[in-house]
């Protein structure tokens, strides 16, 4: 008697097959599940369960153990927490102050590098070195350069400008520059603090090489015939850049913008390393979202509160990614 059952055939569809086929198929199923099990356990516990657990923790007042169920209480408190609002604002300053510059420089260098020039590989290596340098080391080096007796002030002195407090300066850069000319700008319009701008400089330095590599990859997807055709039509290099290269590079630009923005939101180590006197910076002016979460969690043991803040930041990042996805869709 030939037993039969359902199994997946070559096209992945369920069909009735013989008992032998069924046995083989079931064995393949077992192999598949076995192979994904190790990765599944790790990712399942620390990432998938992790995010669910994050939501759970965020509903409690929690120091070492859950103490009281607060429901959305933590979220309500975050909405009224001026420190959290400041952290989000400063994160936006940070993202806006780093990503566009990284991308502009990245595209420029990639376009220049894309031609058949000598030592192209060497240039690429040098530009990428800052990216593989650890964020902690970047923070240490730039903190030293922005030290009161460091290089930045040394250069300022050579230029006849007054010494700055850099990483100890909580005043906004717009206020400082206005003050230099004798104007007055109110506190709330002062912009990012000088300390935060110093950290942005370090971040731009370390991240631009990454952009160069991605844009070079994007440029390589454009077929050379397009360039040749444009050149044969008599277009100048500048015209080719504006009318051919940049439009064709649009998907890459959107992709790089998305990835860079997400990375900027996640910045922690170099910010932490450069923040003085402790994580948060002068008057909390270098407290980005990740640093805020870290402080609430690690320093104050407001674990549930930190979890709620984490979830909000995650939703913001997710929202940015999805809106960019829509812009990525072919027009």
């Amino acid at each position, binding site marked *: 008697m030939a037993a039969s059952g359902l199994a997946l055939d070559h096209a992945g569809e369920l069909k009735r097959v013989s008992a032998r086929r069924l046995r083989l198929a079931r064995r393949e199923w077992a192999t598949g599940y076995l*192979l994904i099990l190790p990765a599944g356990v790790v990712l399942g516990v620390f990432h998938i369960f992790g995010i669910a657990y994050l939501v759970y923790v965020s509903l409690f007042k929690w120091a070492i153990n859950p103490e009281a169920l607060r429901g959305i209480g933590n979220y309500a408190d975050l909405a009224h927490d001026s420190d959290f609002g400041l952290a989000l604002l400063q994160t936006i300053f940070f993202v806006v102050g780093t990503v566009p510059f990284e991308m502009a420089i990245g595209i420029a260098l990639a376009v220049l590098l894309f031609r058949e020039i000598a030592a192209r590989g060497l240039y690429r290596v040098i530009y990428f*070195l800052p990216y593989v340098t650890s964020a902690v*080391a970047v923070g240490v080096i730039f903190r030293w350069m922005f030290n009161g*007796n460091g290089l930045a002030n040394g250069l300022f002195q050579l230029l006849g400008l007054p010494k700055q407090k850099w990483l100890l300066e909580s005043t906004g850069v717009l206020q400082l520059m206005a003050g230099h000319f004798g104007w007055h700008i109110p506190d709330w319009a002062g912009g990012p603090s000088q300390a935060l701008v110093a950290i942005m400089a370090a971040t731009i330095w370390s991240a631009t090489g990454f952009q160069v590599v991605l844009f*070079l990859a994007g440029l390589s997807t454009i077929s050379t015939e397009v360039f040749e055709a444009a050149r044969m039509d008599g277009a100048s290099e500048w015209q080719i850049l504006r009318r051919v290269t940049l439009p064709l590079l649009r998907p890459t630009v959107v992709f790089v913008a998305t990835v860079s923005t997400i990375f900027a939101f996640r910045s922690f180590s170099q910010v932490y390393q450069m923040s003085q006197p402790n994580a948060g910076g002068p008057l909390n002016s270098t407290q980005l979202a990740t640093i805020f*979460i870290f402080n609430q969690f690690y320093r104050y043991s407001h674990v549930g509160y930190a979890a709620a803040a984490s979830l909000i*930041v995650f939703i913001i990042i997710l929202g940015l990614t999805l809106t960019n996805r829509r812009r990525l869709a072919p027009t």
Partner: protein
Amino acid sequence: MTSARRWRNLPLHVVLIVGCGFAAFPFFWMVTTSFKNIYEATSVPPVWFPSVWLWGNYIAAWNAAPFARYFLNTLLVGGCTTALDLVTGCLAGYALARVRFPGRNVIFFLFLATVMIPFELLIVPDFIIVNRLGWYNTYLAQIAPFAASGFSIFLLRQFFAQIPGELYEAAVMDGAGHLRFLWQVAVPLSVPALVTTALFNFIASWNAFLWPLIVTGKQELRPIQLGLSAFQNESGTNFQLLMAGTTIVILPVLLVFVLAQRHLIEGIARAGLKG
């Protein structure tokens, strides 16, 4: 290339070299400072080159903090993480590419989705999990969350999916199953992808900071970046020693990168192209 073309490229090179200057300058400053004495290091206006190159600074820095221990810790944790990530990535990547089982697409989507979750946002729940498991202050806590990664699985799956079906059918006719095929055919064919994955893992482990900061409390377990961070606080105004220490800490990764930059850059480019 005609010589006329070469001269036309000169302004290009000038701009590119200026760019190199910006990229390389902090390294230059770090290294030259590391050889100065404390007065030259902290002098304003800046001194560009040390009058005497003090190689002893490196020995002093090495002895000022337990760098040997930090290196050992990082190598141990990094080695284990890389090995585990390769194994879990190969097994899962192969299954998702070539083994038929129900729910395969859902699982692939879930694995891929984990790439979207920034780890910085998982530190709270993962710390509680690790703590509850009793792994606080252990190497295991530093290794476990990174023993698999959606990124590696994705990368390896792409590679395994490209292996022609005829190779598998030939292996089946020789009596091999999926596991034999994976071990004897698929893996050897995917060495470039494995190397790229291993390199990414090595660099990420070497540069790890936030997670080890949270899950370790003892100095003996500290990996290298935590050691550098602590050294910044401990070295006070001895910036020449701090710069020497920083050079020591970043040199291995820079060397690995320069030697293997082809693999790394192409790996990133490929990931970028796939979007």
